């Protein structure tokens, strides 16, 4: 449309600058998208950690699970009772795996894919029928002869 060399040159400059600005916008959009994706992923990890930490805490310190000595509950002990997700404070949208005999609800197989984050913690628990005797308790505390110690792995992940 503009026939002079000068005119064509200026129009081309403007067109180039428009293209460059558009490219910069697209780059900014992509960066913002990546940032939002990262924030959402971080939120899911934070939630999983919160659920996992609470479950771990409730596994170790829970009158519904712990053995008692003269009525006092001993942290880190596990009596022969059913362990449910509710007792560990795990909501229905999370699955769990716990390698003890009475964890009927926490017996799912963890997903093998790396895309699903899994909260995992190993801990040592002391088993008992329901009540520890004083003698057993002292042995446990003094670590002389811990009665039926077992290493337990608690794994928690979100349902897909």
């Amino acid at each position, binding site marked *: 449309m*503009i026939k002079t060399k000068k005119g064509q040159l200026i129009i081309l400059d403007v067109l180039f600058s428009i293209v460059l600005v558009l490219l910069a916008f697209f780059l900014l959009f992509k960066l913002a998208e990546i940032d939002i994706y990262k924030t959402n992923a971080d939120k899911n990890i934070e939630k999983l950690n919160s659920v996992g930490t609470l479950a771990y805490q409730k596994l170790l310190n*829970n009158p*519904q699970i712990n053995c008692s000595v003269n009525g006092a509950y001993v942290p880190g002990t596990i009596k022969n009772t059913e362990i449910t997700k509710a007792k560990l404070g795990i909501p229905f949208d999370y699955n769990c795996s716990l390698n003890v005999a009475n964890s009927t609800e926490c017996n799912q197989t963890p997903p093998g894919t790396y895309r699903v984050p899994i909260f995992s913690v190993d801990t040592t628990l002391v088993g008992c029928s329901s009540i520890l005797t004083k003698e057993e308790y002292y042995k446990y505390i003094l670590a002389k002869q811990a009665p039926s110690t077992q290493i337990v792995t608690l794994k928690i992940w979100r349902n897909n």
Partner: protein
Amino acid sequence: MFNKKGQLSIEVLIILIFLITFIYVYNSLAEQTVYTLEINKIKEQQQTIGLSLNEFLEIQKDMLYDVNIIDYNSSYTLQELKIPSKRIFCYVDFNLSNAYLTVHSDYSNVHTIINTTITNTEFTLPERINCGEIVVCELQSNKIVCT
């Protein structure tokens, strides 16, 4: 139209149109970016508020099953929801029959749902708790009553 003076006018016009478009697009983009960032920040804080309240209530539940405890109370202050420009009003309400709590905010109806395992049989909770308020839970005849 095609003389030098005319060409200059068209170039200036094109540049002006470009500048106006640029400013408009940039302004819209900036507004959208700020809005998205604020929503993300609010969602993040809502999740923290919901999870920490859920954790507090879950720990209270243990008191029900400890036969040694007959008298107990505990309090927790809900954190407030803030973004750099202002403080946002928010509150938490409970749906214990379906086992979840919702953190609401006064910002574009943004809310966050947190699933829980607390039930009606174990807890009596207020209809809503505003952010910044103190929740007091007491053990009353085999139930945790929070006000």
